C-alpha cells in the first residue's frame, strides 16, 4: 500500500476512464440511469451511493486502516449513525469528558429510545471495567479529550472491551488518522467530525464513520442509507480537497503550538498548560504509545489574580473568538463562558474547567505573529 501522504493526495479513481479528470468530478446527479432493466449498477440513487462521496469514503477507509467508511452531513450525524446501530436495552460506557454535543445526543435522544449509558473517566481502566454490565455493547471514548486533552490509550480500552465481547468506538476528531489510527490499536469503529482537521478550512460541515469488518460496516451503511444524513457531493469534494493537505497543516499547527507553549512557559501568571504533545506536560507518555503528535489544540489556565481571562480573549486579534477547531485559521475559546457554559460553576470545577481556562485551536499562520498577538493580549489583560 502507498504511504500515508501519498494516500492523502491520491483519491481512489472513480471516473478516470471517461475524461481522465485528475480531480474526481462532483457528481451532482440525484439519480443514475440503468443501461437496461435488471442491470447490475454501482449507483442508482444519490442517497444510497454517489461517486464523489464514494471517493472520499474509500479514501477515509484507507487512511484510517478500516474496511469501509461513511460520510455524513456533520460530525453529529456521524456520531448518531455510529450509535444508531444499537438497540433499546443496550448499554454503552462513555467517556466522562467527551464532546458536549455527544452528551446531548446520548442523554436527550438515545436515552429516550431505550439505550442506557454510564459515563466514566476512561483513563481509569478499573472504572471502565466496573461500569461494564451484561447488556453493555460498547465503550465510546475520545483518546484525547477537549478542552483538557486527557489521554486514553486506545489499545487499553480495546483490549478490555474485546475481553468482554463488546465494541470499542473511538472519536478520532482531535488527532485525525495522520496522528493516530485507532483501528490499528484495536478499535472497531472510528468517528470524526470531519469539519475539523480533515476538511480543515472552516468551510465544510462533515462527519465520518470508519468501520472494521463487513458486518459492522453493513450496520452503519444501513443507518446511512435508511436515515440519509449523507454528505453532499460538493461537500464531499471540499472534504477530499481538505484531506490532501492534512499532514502539511497538522505539522505546521503542531510546530506553532510548540512555539506558543515555549513562549507561555516563560510568562508569569500561566498557571497550567494542557498539551500532551510536550514531553514536559501531562499525558505525553500515554500519547506517545500510539500517536504521532497531539494536534493543534492546547489549553492553558491564566492565573485569575494576574490576568482577566475575558479581557484576554477579547483582546486577541489573530485568534478569532469562535467554536470549532482544526482549521487553517487560529481560534480561541473560553470554555467556562462558551462550550461549557451550561454547567454550573461547581459542575465546571468538578470537570476541571476553571474560569481562567483558555482553549486555543492553533492555525497555520506565522508562529511569530500568533505569539505577538498573545503577548499583546496578555499585556492588556493584566490586572
Amino acid at each position, binding site marked *: 500500500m502507498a504511504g500515508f501522504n501519498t494516500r492523502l493526495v491520491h483519491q481512489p479513481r*472513480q*471516473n478516470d476512464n471517461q475524461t481522465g*479528470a485528475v*480531480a474526481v468530478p*462532483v457528481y451532482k446527479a*440525484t439519480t443514475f440511469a440503468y443501461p437496461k432493466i435488471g442491470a447490475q449498477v454501482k449507483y442508482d440513487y444519490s442517497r444510497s451511493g454517489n461517486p464523489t462521496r464514494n471517493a472520499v469514503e474509500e479514501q477515509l477507509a484507507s487512511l484510517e486502516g478500516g474496511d469501509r467508511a461513511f460520510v455524513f452531513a456533520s460530525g453529529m450525524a456521524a456520531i448518531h449513525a455510529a450509535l444508531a446501530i444499537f438497540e433499546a436495552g443496550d448499554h454503552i460506557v462513555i467517556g466522562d469528558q467527551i464532546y458536549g454535543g455527544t452528551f446531548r445526543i446520548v442523554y436527550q435522544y438515545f436515552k429516550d429510545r431505550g439505550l442506557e449509558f454510564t459515563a466514566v473517566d476512561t483513563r481509569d481502566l478499573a472504572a471502565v471495567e466496573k461500569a461494564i454490565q451484561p447488556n453493555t455493547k460498547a465503550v465510546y471514548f475520545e483518546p484525547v479529550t477537549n478542552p483538557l486533552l486527557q489521554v486514553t490509550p486506545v489499545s487499553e480500552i480495546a483490549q478490555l472491551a474485546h475481553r468482554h465481547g463488546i465494541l470499542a468506538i473511538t472519536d478520532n476528531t482531535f488527532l485525525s488518522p495522520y496522528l493516530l489510527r485507532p483501528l490499528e490499536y484495536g478499535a472497531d469503529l472510528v468517528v470524526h467530525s470531519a469539519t475539523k482537521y480533515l476538511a480543515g478550512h472552516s468551510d465544510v460541515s462533515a462527519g465520518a464513520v470508519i468501520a472494521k469488518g463487513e458486518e459492522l460496516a453493513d450496520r452503519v451503511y444501513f443507518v446511512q442509507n435508511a436515515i440519509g444524513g449523507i454528505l453532499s457531493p460538493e461537500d464531499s469534494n471540499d472534504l477530499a480537497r481538505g484531506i490532501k493537505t492534512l499532514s502539511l497543516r497538522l505539522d505546521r499547527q503542531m510546530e506553532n503550538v510548540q512555539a506558543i507553549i515555549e513562549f507561555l512557559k516563560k510568562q508569569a501568571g500561566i498557571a497550567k498548560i494542557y498539551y500532551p504533545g510536550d514531553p514536559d506536560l501531562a499525558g505525553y507518555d500515554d500519547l506517545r504509545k500510539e500517536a504521532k503528535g497531539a494536534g493543534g489544540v492546547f489549553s492553558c489556565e491564566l492565573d485569575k489574580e494576574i490576568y482577566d481571562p475575558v479581557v484576554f480573549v477579547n483582546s486577541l486579534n489573530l485568534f478569532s473568538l469562535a467554536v470549532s477547531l482544526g482549521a487553517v485559521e487560529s481560534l480561541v475559546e473560553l470554555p467556562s463562558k462558551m462550550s461549557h457554559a451550561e454547567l454550573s460553576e461547581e459542575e465546571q470545577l468538578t470537570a476541571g474547567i476553571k474560569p481562567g481556562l483558555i482553549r486555543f485551536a492553533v492555525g497555520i499562520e506565522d508562529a511569530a505573529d500568533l505569539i505577538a498577538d498573545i503577548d499583546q493580549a496578555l499585556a492588556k489583560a493584566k490586572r
Partner: protein
Amino acid sequence: MTEKDNRSFETIVAEAGSIKDGANPVAQPLYLSACYRHPDLDQAVNFDRLQGFTYSRVETPNRKTVEGTLAKLEEGYQGFAVASGMAAVQLVLSVLKTGDEVVSLDDLYGGDFRYFRHLEDHFQIKFKLWNGEALENLRELLSPKTKLVWLETPSNPMMKSVDIQAVADAVHDYNPDILVAVDNTFYTPYYQKPLTQGADVVIHSATKYLGGHNDILGGIVVVKDPVLADFYFQYTITVGDTMSAFDSWLLTRSLTTLPLRMQQHTASAKKIVSFLEQAPHVEKSSIQARRG
C-alpha cells in the same frame, strides 16, 4: 462539430447534461479538475481536443456541455462559453485588425460602445453607425474595409427591430466575407435564431435570460462556419477568459427552464404594457414580441 438536433427546443434543454459515463448520472457531474490524465504518451502527444480533455482552459466537460447545448439551440456549428457578456463581445471582434471597419446599429448596450471606442483609440478600427431603418443607408456604409456588421435586435433601450435576413442578404450581396453578428441576448434562441436567418455569429450575455437567476456572469458566442470556429477557439484558449466549470454547470441547469421562464416573462411584460397603455401619464411604451 455540434450536429443538428431535430428534437424540440424543450427536449434539448431538458436533456442537457444527461450523460453516459459509466455511472449514468441524470445530471452531469461538476468537473472541477484543472487537468486531465492522458492514458499514455502517444495519446498526450496526439491529443484530439474534440474528443477529450487536457487542461481546463482549453475545455472542461461542463463547458463543453453548455457550449454544445447552445450550439444546438442556436443551430450553429460550435459554441463558446466565456466569463462575461463583454468577453463574448471581445471574442467576436477578435477578427478585426487595424484599418478594418465595422458597421453597427446605433442603439446598443453602452458597454459595446465603450469597447468600440477602445478599439478605435488603440487599434484604429473604424465604427460606422446605422440607424436600423433603410437598407440603402446600410449599403452606403459598407466598404472594402468592412469586416463585420453588428446588430442587436430588438435594440436596447429603444426596442428597434431589425430584419436579420434582409440585412444579412444585403451585406452578403455586397461581400459574402463580411460577418453579420447578432446580439441575441434580448430574445434568446427560444424566440429568435439569427443563424437561421443569414447571420454568421450570435452573441449572448448569458448573465441575462440564459442564466436567468442573477447568479452567474457569462457570455456565449455561437458560429456557423468551421473555419471561423477554429479561429475563435484558438483565440479563446490564448486569451483564456473561459467560463468556469461551475458557472457552466449552473448555466446548463438554467437552460432547462428557459422556455418556461421566457413564456412567463412575456406574459407578464404584456400585462404590464397593457396596464401602461391605459395609464394617463405614459406617452409611449415599446414591446417587441415573437411567437406570442
